């Protein structure tokens, strides 16, 4: 178990009468990468500011390596962190002057600054822009400058608030690749806020889901994305098919769940009679035209309500016995099937693809 770098206990942030953030406990371990996801206004940025020691919580404690951050020498601890925001927020100066700003603020010598800065400028591919003025940079170049400004500080915690969200897709993907390589090579402890599920899943080891300022779930990325604990989390991580049903039978390995007049067979162990929600990722649904019956379970007949073309996937909305379903089918198979609205199709899924949430 890695050392705990930062731990939040009973942290509350209030804006007037409204509670923006309420976190009972959150620990950040040395070397881990934590993503914070959640809808707009769920308190993600507030949490990041508290973790970056930029905002004093209204209540509760924030411990940085066992030291109470907001009671002690805040500046000294804050200087062991570095925050990057969605906008590059550069000073009206050159790339070089912006990149060295944090080092200058810490009173480092010019020699030391040059020694530390050059490798990072190279690494982020902006060494040739040293003398360029910040305002003449493209969005990607500016955000790279902002990242260098933070990385060169070699912070114990790197905090990022939607760092790639404002970039165009090409520079975003390029920067994402570079950033991922840096995270892997440098064993950086990082916390980042994102709206992008792919980004969260791709970069982070652990994911925290915020909803209305509270921690809806925190855990390993596979758990959060494939085994959400609540319907809210299932929704936030993109599980669009959530079918309410009742457990009818259980043989120890599989449960039979009735959803409307459909019977589903799902891996798991549950007592018959309890109410559940069956979660199915849109990409785990398969669509076919044949009516071959291999099994009575997990085999639905439905009508196509809509086909939305996408670059990688086609998004098919369906209706099965009054149940709305969404399926994401890879583009080519979808084109081969020539799926069109109002057609009847067979929908199948594997019994291990479904995840069950106990309904409350």
């Amino acid at each position: 178990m890695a050392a705990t770098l930062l731990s939040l206990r009973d942290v509350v942030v209030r804006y007037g009468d409204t509670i923006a953030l309420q976190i009972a406990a959150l620990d950040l371990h040395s070397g881990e990468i934590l993503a914070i996801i959640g809808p707009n206004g769920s308190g993600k940025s507030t949490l990041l500011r508290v973790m970056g020691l930029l905002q004093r919580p209204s209540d509760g404690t924030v411990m940085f390596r066992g030291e109470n951050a907001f009671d002690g020498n805040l500046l000294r601890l804050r200087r062991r962190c570095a925050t990057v925001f969605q906008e590059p927020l550069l000073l009206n100066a050159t790339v070089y002057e912006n990149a060295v700003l944090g080092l200058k603020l810490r009173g480092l010598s010019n020699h030391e600054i040059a020694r530390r800065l050059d490798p990072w400028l190279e690494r982020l591919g902006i060494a040739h822009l040293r003398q360029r003025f910040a305002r003449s940079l493209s969005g990607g170049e500016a955000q790279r400058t902002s990242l260098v400004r933070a990385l060169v500080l070699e912070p114990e915690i790197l905090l990022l608030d939607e760092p790639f969200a404002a970039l165009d897709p090409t520079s975003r993907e390029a920067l994402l690749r570079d950033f991922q390589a840096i995270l892997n090579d440098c064993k950086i402890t990082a916390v980042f806020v994102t709206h992008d599920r792919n980004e969260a899943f791709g970069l982070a080891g652990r994911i925290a889901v915020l909803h209305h300022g509270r921690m809806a779930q925190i855990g390993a990325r596979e758990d959060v994305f494939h085994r959400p604990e609540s319907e809210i989390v299932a929704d936030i991580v993109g599980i669009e098919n959530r079918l309410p049903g009742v457990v009818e039978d259980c043989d120890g390995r599989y449960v039979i769940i009735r959803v409307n007049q459909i019977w589903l067979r799902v891996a798991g162990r549950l007592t018959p009679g309890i109410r559940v929600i069956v979660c199915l990722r849109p990409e785990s649904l398969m669509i076919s035209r044949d009516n071959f019956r291999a099994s009575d379970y997990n085999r639905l007949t439905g009508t196509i309500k809509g086909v939305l073309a996408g670059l990688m996937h086609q998004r098919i909305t369906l209706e099965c016995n009054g149940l709305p379903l969404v399926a994401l089918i890879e583009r080519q198979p979808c084109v081969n099937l020539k799926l069109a609205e109002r057609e009847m199709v067979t929908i199948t899924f594997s019994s291990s693809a479904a995840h069950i949430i106990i309904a409350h």
Partner: protein
Amino acid sequence: MELIWHGVLKAAELVFGLDGEVWSITWRSLQISGCATFISLLIGMPLGIALALARFPGRATTVALINTGMGLPPVVVGLFISIFLWRSGPLGFLELIYTPAAMVIAQVIIAFPIVAGLTMASFQALDPKLALQLLGIGASKPQLLWLLVREAKLPLLAAVMAGFGGVISEVGASMMVGGNIRNQTRVLTTATVLETGKGNFEIAIALGLILLGLTFAINLLLTRIQQREQLRWPRLS
């Protein structure tokens, strides 16, 4: 027309002939208004920064007062300063009426709201997230303030020059509290009024031209700074 042409020639002779009195009046104007501008900066800049960055009760009222102060009629300022500094007034014991010090006081009252208002505007034009970002890379509170001042330096320079331009060209208050006493409180504006009244148009024009030259130089500098900050607008059709 001949009067003007004649006046201009005479003015040139006075200016370039280094007429003692004209130059001493100019120098006095610069001293008094320069001193007033300096004091206005000491008061107006911290006030403007505080109004832009801090949240405190009565802030809205203070901002409204400052905005009103930016357009304060100099004669009104002159009237009130005169009342206060009058021999029998509340501050009469200071014996400041009809001294350069009185003029400086009046000009500070005129200039500091201009400086405060423009300082506030230049700070409010900064991205509020910039402050958070600077803290986020380890700036202390004093470092943060210094970096923000540096970032707003061009509009701040505009505040300085607008304050100076406001007081160097002001006549009402200087006349009322200074008294336009020769070799003591006579400045470019009050001298221009006097010489015009006496019909000495050549000297009046000379003084006017010097004043015009000064304010033009200030405004030229101000405009260049503002143009440098101007973002390029697309051609609108």
